[in-house]
Structure formats: structure tokens, C-alpha cells
């Protein structure tokens, strides 16, 4: 007796023959994989393209090869270094200030950028008219295009910056070095460098950035230059950025968001795979007789297994291919959704790498998730052809464990590849497992409870519906899982966005500020205060600010700490110019977490200060540690008396370092004032009056910032929601797959019930009740899990109490329940439309 002589081609042939007759069911599996793969590949590919585009346009983004910058005038040593590099090719001084537009009754906080001729060396100043870019040297200002529109400004109108009034040469559409996010708060205004001093805006306390742009030779090693000069410049409170490091920094900023979106997409793919696993289970169950016949005719266990394995592998490849193609079209939408949040234009291409990723992902995921249900084919007895044989013995335990471990391992490895961080990947997989296990547990518990406490006294229709929820091959588990995860994702994203916005929101009380006035010189404080109050608007806070730098920590000078390669102290602590305030009490956004608050002292020796917990962490100091500050040339010894936890998310002035009253009153300082205007008109009038009288004072309208924040979160939220909706789409595909796969059983049952006298509307009622319960249970568990997950996020990440919004309960929950109900009932109408005989005959096909 020889071996049977079939090869792979026969398996392919049989898979194709069987597949073409079952294409309806298989199409739904392919659809699930396609959507899941599209979600992952689109985000992954777009993130990669964005990174590549940033890298390829890095010079144009910076406008130069490298830049040396400082937030104070550079000293002779830095000048010497720059001279040794051949001298800067262009200079820039920039700061935020109020701009007035004479004749247009408007004022606005802008970013004034005084630049030398020739800048930028790479990229271009995009202006309207185009020639305006060349008019900068002729003494004209280039004003942000949106601001021009907002104030109805035209070329030739004037802009007043401090003491200088310049004609507007054109609208500025794009300029290297200005980000669109910051640009929305303080849009850029370019003026010739030579006018900066004449504005009179470079004063004590003004936050001014000095930049020196350089062009490099093609052969110059910028990385080496950075490594060589960075420590020297650090010591002089200056910094060197190359176009390469700038691109990396910018890339990282978008990378994190991309990683997060990748995970959302990956969850959609996993969801699709859960659908495949469950659908495959039902599919194989339907094929038991055919497998038995094949075995009867001489097919081996391996052959009958491989026929379906080949089918699922082909579906994985087709799903992967279609998913990658869909991903290409989806990527075209991202720039539209994200708008000007993207730093560069991204050219979308369908890369070979994306194709490989999509196909391998589709193949690997579909095979992994189908392995377990496919194992059933191994245990089908050929005796099934002669009689109904008891359900085959349970699958081998080691094989089940191996498949389970394989899935977890693959999910972990893929998450690790996406995130590049072991612990994050581990937490993601664990979190996912918890959600899966909780939903599975709930579904099983629900079925168990239903069986145990079955309402035998109810009428026939609801009883039959409830029985459907725990009958063999029921859909309860797979639907609760897919609907639950989809709803969980969407609701969690909604709650998180809500939390972020609420944290930033201006409290609607008379005591909370909606406008912050900055850069008020100490001699102006009283006059500005009087001006505000004379307009009938209250001054809520007058906050004095003294600038200083850290000179020593725990007795070790900063120069020594910089040289110590083992030091863990953050560079921000050593290089930053701190804006410090003094007061006798805590404010609402702070609470003491270590030590004691001291509000007032009489002596300036060993001053008891309070630092924020982030300052303490980065400076490696705790209560009782000495810190020496350089207060504009004078060294001041202090001791950390308390550590505060600060809620930085509140839109109000917060401080890393707070001195007690009684020490800094005589130090050179400037002021910040907060006020609350009643309406937009009052706000505009006050701003105009203040800018006319005090041109150096900058005004931050918190309402506008909040609107901007809402806009940014809205755009990001769109993309996140878009990806989350993908999970729902996948959930719908899974749902349809589950409905379709179990249709034959439902049809048979319904036809038998109709034969026994049940009417069409009664059967439809049964189906309707079943899907309404499944939809509600899945969606409700999803929202409940989202509330728990968001509470955890609120506690761990946002440090706030979480009050869930009613929207997921009032809109998402009923909407998803209704969707499941409609899909379930819609797909089952065919069951009652035809006569029982026709239905049963058709079902045999």
C-alpha cells in the first residue's frame, strides 16, 4: 500500500473548489482582515512617510544647516566660537509681543522675528505676492496670512510693533522655523533685523531668543560638530541645533502620536482576527460532513486539515493585499484630517515595504487565529458519514496551549515592533488581555446566569430568544467581544479627549482669569492695574517675576555637574532661565507633597523655597537640600523647604520655584497680571487700550488659546476617532460574518418552528430580541470598561477625578445597540420571507 500521491496543487485545487462555493462566508473573513490590515498599514506607512519627509526637508524646516541659539545676548566666548566657525551667515532675534494695526482697530499677540537678509538659506519664504519675500530688506514687514485675513489687512497697510511702525510688504504663508501650532497663538511677523532695537521691546523680563544661522560645507560632519560644541555652548547657556537633530526632534514628536494610532489600528486588526477565529469555528463545524466524506474517500488527516489551512492562508494574503491598497487611499485622508498640524507636505506612495507588511500581517494573523478552530478537522471521524457521531474528543491540550502562547507572543512582538519599548508593549498586551478576559468572562457569566436563572414562566417568544443566547454555536461570546472592544475604544477615546479639554478649561467663576498680561515692567504695574480697573474690569492677580538660573545644587556648582558624566541632573535644570515668583500662600493649582510651606521670611540667608515635584526630580533634590541661584549676577543661597505638586494643565501662571515673601521684593523684576473680561468686545477694547499705552506688554487671551486647543484636539480626535471607527467597521464585519456563518442553523431552526406553526413575525421578534440583548450587552460592557479604564487614566496619568460624560451612555451605547439590532434583523429577514421547504432546500446548497 503506497502513500497517496496528491501534492500542494491538489490542496490548492480543493481549497479553491470549496472556497468558490462558500465565497460569501469567506468574503466576510477577507473583509475583516482587509479592514484590520488597512488600519495598521495606513498609520504605519503614513508615520514612516512623514518621518522620511521631515528628514528630507530638514534643511528647509530649519532654513539653515545649523543654528546656535540662546535666550540671552551671547557672551564673548560664544561669539569667539561663532567667529571660529566663519561667523554666522544670518542673525535672528525673536520674541512675542502685541502688534497693532493702525486704521484697523485691532491688536494681536504675534511672534516678532527680526531676521538678516539672506535667511532662509534653504526652503523659501512663501509669501503673497511672491515678490514680497524679497522686499523684506527694503524695510517692510511680512505678516502671517491668516492674521492679514482676520484684520482685513492689505499690502501697504501698517503694523505697529512697540515704537516702530512698518508698512506691510506681503502675507506670509510659510516660514522656516515657525510651527503652525504656536503660530496659531502668536502668528509670525518678519521684520528686518535692524528694526528690532528700535521697537524698544527688548526689555527686562522679555523672553527673547537670539539665533545665529550657519551654512555648512557639504563635507562638514554636523553630528561631530554638535558633539564637540554642545558641552562648551551649554556652559555658556547657548545651544546648537543641526538640521539633522531638528528633524529627529520633530520626527519624535509625531512618532509618539503615530505609535498611539498604530495601536488603535492594531486593535482593529485583532478584533477582525477574533471574528475570523469565531467564524472559522462555525465554518469548520459546517464542513464536518464534507471532511468525513473526504476521509472516507481516502484523504488523510493532514490533507483535510491543509485544505482549510490553504483557504485561510489565501484569505490572509488577499486580505493583506486589499488592506494595503485600502491603506494607500486612507493615507490620502490623513493630511485632510490633520490639516496644518503636519510640519511638511507628505507625498503618499504605495511602498514595497507597506505591501510586505500588509501581506505578512494578513497572513500571520489569519493563520494564527484560525489554527485553533482548524484543529477540529483533525478529530472528525469518517464514521460521521454513516451516523451522527458524538462530538469529537477535545483538542490536544499542548496544541491549544501552543496556539494560545503563539498568539500572545506574536501580539507582543508586533506591539514591541510598533512601540519600540518593552514595558509599554508588555502593558499594552496585558491591558488587551484584561479587556479580552473581562469581556469573555462577562459573556460566559451572562450565559451561565441565564441558564441557571432561566425565566421559565415567560412567554414562548422571549424564552426562545433567551435560549438562542446560550444554545450550542451561539454568537454571544464573539459579539460581546467585538462590540465590547469597539465600544470600549471609542468611549475611552471620547472620555480621554473630554478629560484633556476639561483640565485645560477656564473655570467659569468670577475669580478665574481669562486673560493674562505679561512682560509688565515693575514701574508699569500700578499704572496698568489702574487702567484695567478704570475699564470696570477687575485685576485678579498681580504676580511678580524674577528671572534667575541655578548656580549650584547640593553644594556642587553647575559647571562641575555638567562635567560629571555620572550626574543624573537634567540639563534643563542647568541651562534654563527660571521665572520665579514670590508669595505668602499656595494657589489652587498646587499642593504640598513633602516638607512645609513657608510663606514669609525676614532674612535672605538660606531662604526656604518651594520647588515643583518635576524640578525636584530633575535636579535630584529633596526637602532640606541646598540650592544656590544666580539672581541676575547675585548668588542667593536657598534650601528646599517644600515640594509641590503642580497642575500644569490649568491655563494659569504656574511656577517651578516659589520664594517666600520678604526676599525678592527689591530684585529687578517684571510683572504678570491676570484679569477676567466679560465678553469678546470688552476683551478687544482692553487689549487695544493696553497696547496703545504699554506696547511692551503682551496679552494672552486664554479663551482664544482654549479655542485653539479645542481645535487641535478636535483634529487629533478626528484621526483617533477615524481609527476607532475602523474597529467598529471591523466589528460590523465580524458581526455580519457571525450572523452569516450561523445563518444555516438559524434558518433550519426557524423553518422547523414555522413547520410547527410559528408565524414569520414571531420568528422575527425572537431574532430582534436576541440581537437587541447582544448589542446592548456588548456596548454596555464596552462603555463600562471605558469608564473604568478612563478612571485609571485619570488617576495615574492626569491626576484628576473623573466624572464620565453622559454622551457615551446616551449616544454611543444606544447607537451601537441599534446598529447590531438592525444588522441582525436585516440579515435574518430572508429566513421568514420564503416557505420553510424552500428555505431548507436552499440552505442545503
Amino acid at each position, binding site marked *: 500500500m503506497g502513500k497517496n500521491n496528491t501534492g500542494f496543487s491538489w490542496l490548492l485545487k480543493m481549497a479553491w473548489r*470549496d472556497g468558490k462555493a462558500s465565497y460569501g462566508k469567506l468574503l466576510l473573513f477577507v473583509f475583516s482582515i482587509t479592514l484590520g490590515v488597512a488600519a495598521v498599514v495606513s498609520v504605519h506607512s503614513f508615520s514612516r512617510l512623514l518621518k522620511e519627509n521631515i528628514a528630507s526637508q530638514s534643511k528647509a524646516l530649519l532654513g539653515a544647516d545649523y543654528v546656535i541659539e540662546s535666550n540671552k545676548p551671547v557672551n564673548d566666548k560664544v561669539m569667539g566660537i561663532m567667529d571660529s566657525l566663519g561667523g554666522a551667515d544670518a542673525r535672528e532675534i525673536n520674541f512675542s509681543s502685541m502688534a497693532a494695526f493702525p486704521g484697523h482697530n485691532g491688536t494681536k499677540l504675534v511672534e516678532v522675528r527680526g531676521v538678516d537678509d539672506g535667511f532662509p538659506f534653504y526652503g523659501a519664504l512663501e509669501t503673497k505676492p511672491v515678490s514680497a519675500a524679497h522686499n523684506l530688506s527694503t524695510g517692510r514687514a511680512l505678516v502671517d496670512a491668516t492674521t492679514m485675513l482676520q484684520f482685513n489687512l492689505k499690502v501697504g497697510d501698517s503694523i505697529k510693533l512697540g515704537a516702530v511702525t512698518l508698512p506691510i510688504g506681503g502675507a506670509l504663508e510659510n516660514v522656516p522655523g515657525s510651527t503652525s501650532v504656536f503660530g496659531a497663538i502668536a502668528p509670525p511677523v518678519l521684520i528686518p533685523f535692524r528694526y528690532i532695537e528700535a521697537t524698544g521691546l527688548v526689555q527686562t523680563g522679555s523672553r527673547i531668543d537670539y539665533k545665529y544661522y550657519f551654512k555648512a560645507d557639504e563635507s562638514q560632519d554636523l553630528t561631530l560638530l554638535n558633539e564637540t560644541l554642545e558641552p562648551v555652548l551649554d556652559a555658556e547657556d547657548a545651544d546648537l541645533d543641526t538640521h539633522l537633530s531638528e528633524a529627529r526632534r520633530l520626527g519624535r514628536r509625531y512618532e509618539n502620536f503615530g505609535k498611539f494610532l498604530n495601536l488603535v489600528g492594531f486593535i482593529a486588526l485583532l478584533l477582525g482576527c477574533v471574528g475570523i477565529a469565531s467564524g472559522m469555528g462555525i465554518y469548520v463545524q459546517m464542513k464536518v460532513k464534507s471532511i468525513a466524506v473526504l476521509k472516507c474517500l481516502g484523504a488523510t488527516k493532514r490533507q483535510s486539515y491543509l485544505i482549510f489551512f490553504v483557504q485561510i492562508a489565501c484569505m490572509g494574503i488577499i486580505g493583506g493585499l486589499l488592506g494595503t491598497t485600502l491603506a494607500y487611499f486612507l493615507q490620502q485622508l490623513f493630511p485632510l484630517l490633520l490639516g496644518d498640524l503636519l510640519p511638511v507636505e507628505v507625498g503618499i506612495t504605495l511602498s514595497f515595504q507597506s505591501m510586505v507588511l500588509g501581506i505578512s500581517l494578513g497572513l500571520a494573523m489569519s493563520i494564527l487565529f484560525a489554527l485553533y478552530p482548524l484543529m477540529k478537522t483533525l478529530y472528525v471521524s469518517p464514521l460521521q458519514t454513516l451516523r451522527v457521531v458524538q462530538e469529537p474528543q477535545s483538542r490536544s491540550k499542548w496544541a491549544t496551549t501552543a496556539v494560545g502562547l503563539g498568539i500572545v507572543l506574536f501580539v507582543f512582538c508586533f506591539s514591541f515592533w510598533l512601540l519600540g519599548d518593552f514595558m509599554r508593549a508588555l502593558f499594552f498586551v496585558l491591558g488587551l488581555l484584561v479587556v479580552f478576559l473581562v469581556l469573555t468572562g462577562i459573556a460566559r457569566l451572562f450565559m451561565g446566569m441565564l441558564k441557571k436563572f432561566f425565566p421559565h414562566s415567560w412567554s414562548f417568544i422571549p424564552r426562545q430568544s433567551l435560549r438562542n443566547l446560550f444554545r450550542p454555536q451561539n454568537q454571544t461570546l464573539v459579539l460581546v467581544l467585538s462590540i465590547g472592544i469597539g465600544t470600549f475604544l471609542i468611549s475611552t477615546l471620547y472620555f480621554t479627549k473630554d478629560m484633556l479639554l476639561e483640565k485645560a478649561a477656564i473655570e467659569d467663576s468670577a475669580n478665574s482669569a481669562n486673560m493674562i498680561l505679561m512682560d509688565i515692567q515693575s514701574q508699569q504695574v500700578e499704572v496698568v492695574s489702574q487702567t484695567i480697573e478704570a475699564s470696570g474690569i477687575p485685576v485678579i492677580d498681580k504676580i511678580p517675576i524674577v528671572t534667575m538660573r541655578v548656580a549650584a545644587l547640593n553644594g556642587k556648582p553647575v559647571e562641575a555637574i555638567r562635567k560629571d558624566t555620572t550626574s543624573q541632573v537634567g540639563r534643563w535644570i542647568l541651562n534654563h532661565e527660571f521665572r520665579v515668583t514670590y508669595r505668602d500662600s499656595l494657589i489652587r493649582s498646587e499642593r504640598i507633597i513633602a516638607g512645609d510651606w513657608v510663606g514669609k521670611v525676614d532674612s535672605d540667608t538660606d531662604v526656604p523655597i518651594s520647588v515643583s515635584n518635576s524640578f525636584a526630580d530633575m535636579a535630584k533634590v529633596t526637602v532640606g537640600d541646598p540650592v544656590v541661584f544666580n539672581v541676575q549676577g547675585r548668588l542667593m543661597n536657598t534650601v528646599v523647604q517644600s515640594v509641590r505638586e503642580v497642575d500644569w494643565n490649568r491655563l494659569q501662571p504656574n511656577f517651578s520655584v516659589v520664594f517666600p515673601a520678604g526676599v525678592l521684593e527689591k530684585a529687578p523684576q517684571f510683572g504678570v497680571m491676570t484679569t477676567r473680561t466679560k465678553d469678546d468686545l470688552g476683551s478687544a477694547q482692553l487689549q487695544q487700550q493696553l497696547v496703545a499705552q504699554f506696547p511692551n506688554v503682551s496679552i494672552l487671551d486664554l479663551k482664544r488659546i482654549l479655542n485653539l486647543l479645542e481645535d487641535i484636539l478636535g483634529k487629533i480626535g478626528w484621526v483617533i476617532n477615524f481609527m476607532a471607527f475602523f474597529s467598529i467597521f471591523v466589528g460590523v464585519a465580524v458581526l455580519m460574518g457571525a450572523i452569516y456563518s450561523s445563518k444555516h442553523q438559524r434558518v433550519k431552526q426557524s423553518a422547523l418552528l414555522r413547520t410547527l406553526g410559528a408565524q414569520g413575525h414571531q420568528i422575527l421578534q425572537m431574532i430582534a430580541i436576541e440581537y437587541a440583548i447582544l448589542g446592548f450587552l456588548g456596548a454596555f460592557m464596552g462603555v463600562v470598561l471605558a469608564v473604568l479604564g478612563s478612571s485609571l487614566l485619570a488617576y495615574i496619568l492626569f491626576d484628576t477625578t473623573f466624572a464620565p460624560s453622559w454622551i457615551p451612555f446616551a449616544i454611543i451605547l444606544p447607537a451601537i445597540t441599534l446598529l447590531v439590532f438592525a444588522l441582525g434583523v436585516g440579515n435574518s429577514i430572508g429566513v421568514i420571507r420564503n416557505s420553510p421547504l424552500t428555505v431548507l432546500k436552499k440552505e442545503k446548497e
Partner: protein
Amino acid sequence: MSKILKVQNLSKTYRSGEHDLNVLNNVSFEVDRGETFAIVGPSGSGKTTLLGLCAGLDTTDAGEIWLCDHNLFDLDEDGRARLRNENVGFVFQDFQLLPTLTALENVIVPLELRGVKNASEQGKELLAKVGLKERSGHYPSQLSGGEQQRVALARAFANKPSILFADEPTGNLDDETGTKIEDLLFELNKEQGTALVIVTHDLDLAKKTDKSIRLRSGKIEETVA
């Protein structure tokens, strides 16, 4: 004449709830090559179980079965599957055609499993022989019961089997169609020299065979030669 099937002291017990059910008890018989053989008996007498065991679809508890000179006890499941592919044909009461395959595809599965090159041509010839040449592209659901059983017959004889097991081959058919199928079955038996083992309630059909046994409660009650 050499024996194609030898059954010696065969017993089979199934577990039914808390109890053991003795379905076959010490059954022995032999079938010669090319011989026609019927197994008759009332429902529950163990006919189908005996057929399944003889064809290697299930395993025995006690006794021995020699099929085409192979002791089934020595073969694993895949070994028994190969033996069936090379030597055995099947006809079932409910036809057992693969619903997702066309008539032709159903017929050629055993040929393809053996790696026969011109399986399709042979399949078409077989379908022509059973009078279904024109319906080779139809799916089972598009065929009548009699047509489906004819396709099953074509499939059963595709590999020119040494022995064919038929489980109530006319049980689901009307008298007229049933008779046609019986005739076709015996015609093919004669033409190819295939031994026939038929399980049936139909005593008229049993009378047409060379030999028969009557089972009752798992034991041979009568042997008719």
C-alpha cells in the same frame, strides 16, 4: 477464490450514558473477490456499525478484520484512509456528495487523491456511464436524489475498487429510481469485478446478492449462501 474481506470474532461496545451498549457480539464472516454480499436485519441490529468497522471507519474492541490482505488493527487512521483510497468504494443512503463540489469534481476526488493525471477525463467517462454526462458541472443541490446517487456510484467506482460498501443505497429513493440504481450497482460490479457489501432493509435487494447474513442484536442470526 481469495478473500477480499475476513471478519473474525468481531465485537464492538459503545458507551451510552452510564451503560455500555454491546452493538456487535462475536461476528465472523468472509467475502470473496467479486462476490456480492448483503447484511440485513432490523433497525439497531448493528448493520451500519459492522459496515463502518469493515471499511475501517471505526476501530474494533475485539476480533480481527482483514481487508484486502491488510489487518485493519495494524493500521493507523491515515493508513486506513490510504487503504480505502486504493481499494474501497462507498455508497451511502444520503449520497454524501461534497456540497461545494460539482458532480464531476465529486467523482474525481478519489482519482486526484491517488495522483491520477487524467482524472477529469476518467471522471467524465464515469459520469457518462451513469447517464449524467450533461450534468457534470452541476452542484449536488441542483440534482435530484436519483441523480445524486448516480454521481455517488460514479465516485464509488472511480478508483476501480476491489470492494464497495453500500449503506442502504436505495433507502432515500423512490421504487423506480431505486431499482435503476440497484441495476447500475450490479452492472458495475460485474463489469469491474468489484465485491459488493450492501447493508439493507430491503429483502428483495438482499436476495439479488450471492450471500447474505441476518443480524439481530449484534449477532449473526442467519447466513444465506
